[in-house]
């Protein structure tokens, strides 16, 4: 064989092996965490291990649409995970335990199923027992009907309520111990000792509800609602979010559609006074913490902190009451 032929063959071999081998090597060294819509597998990997105090470096990429990444119970803003791009993220955990990470972008109908866990181990691996949530300690059946037997004829106004309470001793209503365990309707009933008409009592309820929250709480609740709840419950709380229609299988879809339809409920309508005025904050906390158990309402207990849930609840009531500002 001529020398030039031999050199050519070597060059071709090196080029082809290089074109395959070098990228394969670097590809095998890269540890990307892939996000796909839940129907295509969700997060991969969906279980990550980390150590307390040690930085956890994550390199996130999306294989389809825009996703977001955040870890529950950490009060963190989500980072975007873009298709074909890599987002670098470093997390540090100061407590051991099992954390839930989740998608923060409305990526598809099953967006809320895009979750995974980070198991954080450390020297102190005994997880602190979590205190029982209020709805558990109260023994509330959060799946029982809780409709308010009576509803106001017009939207109750905290502004009008404030003008009505002068001279009335209602301070027992303005503390979280009372507020969290009573529904607006129960409070309305409790106010019958005062010389007020029905609609005035509802206005005072609105004032009491406003007094049990803060502007910051409402703003935070509004932000959390927009990010996490509006997709199904709708921006205006009417239960008509962009995914709401799709949660019901179409009548023509076949495959046991009726059976599935009977199992799935439409998202709760927060503008329905009977539903919300009959629910206490503790009851709503239970629904948010535990989720709807097969209804399509996810479990948020592992995502939101307790404070975030109270903020959300305060905001949900704002669909029923006219607050100042």
């Amino acid at each position: 064989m001529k020398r030039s032929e031999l050199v050519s063959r070597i060059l071709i071999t090196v080029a082809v092996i290089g074109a395959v081998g070098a990228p394969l090597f670097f590809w095998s060294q890269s540890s990307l965490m892939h996000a796909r819509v839940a129907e295509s597998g969700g997060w991969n990997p969906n279980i990550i291990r980390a150590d307390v105090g040690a930085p956890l470096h994550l390199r996130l990429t999306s294989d389809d649409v825009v996703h977001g990444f955040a870890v529950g119970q950490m009060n963190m803003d989500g980072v975007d995970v873009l298709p074909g791009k890599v987002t670098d993220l470093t997390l540090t955990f100061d407590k051991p335990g099992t954390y839930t990470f989740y998608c923060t972008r409305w990526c598809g109908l099953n967006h809320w199923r895009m979750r995974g866990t980070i198991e954080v181990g450390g020297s102190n691996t005994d997880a602190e027992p979590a205190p029982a949530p209020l709805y558990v300690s109260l023994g509330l059946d959060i799946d029982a009907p809780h409709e308010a037997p009576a509803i106001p004829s017009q939207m109750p106004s905290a502004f009008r309520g404030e003008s009505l309470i002068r001279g009335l001793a209602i301070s027992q209503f303005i503390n979280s111990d009372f507020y969290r365990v009573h529904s607006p309707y129960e409070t309305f009933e409790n106010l019958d000792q005062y010389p007020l008409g029905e609609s005035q009592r509802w206005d005072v309820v609105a004032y009491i509800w406003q007094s049990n929250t803060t502007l910051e709480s409402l703003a935070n609740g509004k932000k959390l609602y927009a990010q996490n709840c509006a997709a199904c419950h709708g921006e205006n709380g009417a239960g008509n979010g962009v995914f709401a229609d799709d949660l019901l299988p179409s009548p023509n879809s076949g495959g046991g559609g009726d059976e599935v339809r009977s199992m799935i409920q439409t998202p709760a309508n927060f503008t329905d006074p009977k539903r919300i005025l009959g629910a206490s904050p503790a009851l709503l906390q239970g629904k948010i913490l535990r989720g709807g158990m097969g209804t399509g309402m996810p479990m948020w207990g592992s995502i939101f902190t307790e404070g975030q849930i109270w903020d959300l609840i305060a905001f949900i009531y704002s669909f029923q009451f006219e607050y100042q500002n």
Partner: protein
Amino acid sequence: MNRIELTRNLFIKSALKNRHPQLAVFIVMLAGYVFAILAGLIGTPVGSHNFSIVFVWIAWWAILILVAVPFFGRGWCAVCPIPLPGEWLQRGAVLHPLDKKPKWLNLRWPRALRNIWLQNIAFLLLALFSSVLLTTPTITAIVLAAMLFTAIGLSMVFERRAFCRYLCPVGGFIGLYSQTAPLELRIKDKQTCVTCDGKPCYNGASTSLSANSGYGCPWDVFPGGLTRNTYCGLCMECLRTCPHDNIAVNLRPFSADLAKPSARLDEAFKAFIMLGSAMIYAGVLLGPWGALKDAAFYVGTSAWIIYAAVFLGIIFIILPGLFSLALFLAHRPSLKACLGRSRGVGRGTGLRTFAMFSASLIPLGLMFWVAFSLSFVLTNAAYILVSLSDPLGLGWNLFGTADVAWRPIFTSLLAPAQTLALVGGLIWSARMAQKAADESKISAIPVMAYCFAATVVMLWLLL
């Protein structure tokens, strides 16, 4: 006609004759091709960030349809990596021929298949799945690998480049449109070829027999008979083997080959396939119709089956049918007008006329593709820079361009450029139709009206 022989320039001639520059290009192309397959398989499934999609369907396509085919004809075929591994195995060498050839089957390609119908079918198969193919890296990788291995397999069984000549899905239209290119490889003197002993340009000349060693035409073409670019792959073997220095690479006027068009039905239908596909692609990929996009994408669904049926119906029935109608109308007035003439309409009827006149659609089809390709190439060109730096979507930034934001380029030029291309194609085709009509002594107006109507539809789809 005026021609400028480029091979008179000694630098150009030696660069084309010498195997090493070509080999250097081959090595880069082959490495790129293999890398594209790998990227499709292991890179991000997001098409716009995967080398296989971006470099094959945006960068390569842009170069092919906007530069290579219009100006260099089969220039792409001259550097295409797909047939190389098979050809090297077939020859047992990558450079000069060996005295002792490897013992592969070396069969002749079956006579019944010596046409481009298989290429037409191969193109249509890809075209029907194009929405998936153009957006899914793994599918692109599988198709690229399948073409590579098919070419290798065919080289083991058949002589020469059977894959390129008879099966390559893109080779068919490159050949068809290469007739419009201002570049050609031709012989200088016919008599020299007639008297040439052994015809080494076709049969090859090994080192021991001739100083001009080289392989017989890989494209199974006898250069002495070349009148059209269609099947000349510009591989330059004949330039190397010709003992009489009788091969020239010429610059020539555009569409010189169409003066005497082919009367082959396989090529005629290729013209309709390409014309129709450009229009359908413009509708599916650039149009505002979501349901149409879905139908094209969800392969196997009933909507896709309807889409496929309509696609094939437009290409095989509607476009040729209307063209036949145009030809029929073109003949009618001429029947009367030509009664007194000695050369009547008889020689211009039937399938032969159909095939010959369809050649006038070649410039129009090419310009349809240019206009269509401008749209998505200018829209998606930014992805080329991104993919260059991060070809697998692994977060690399090799050349610092990984974070270039997507943004269409030259948007203000797009509509004028497309209009210019389409109107230019229409005028070009109308001139071809006029020449063909003059020769056949029929009216050119119905064919011109056909071209005009197709151009109006394409303008509507694109603008």
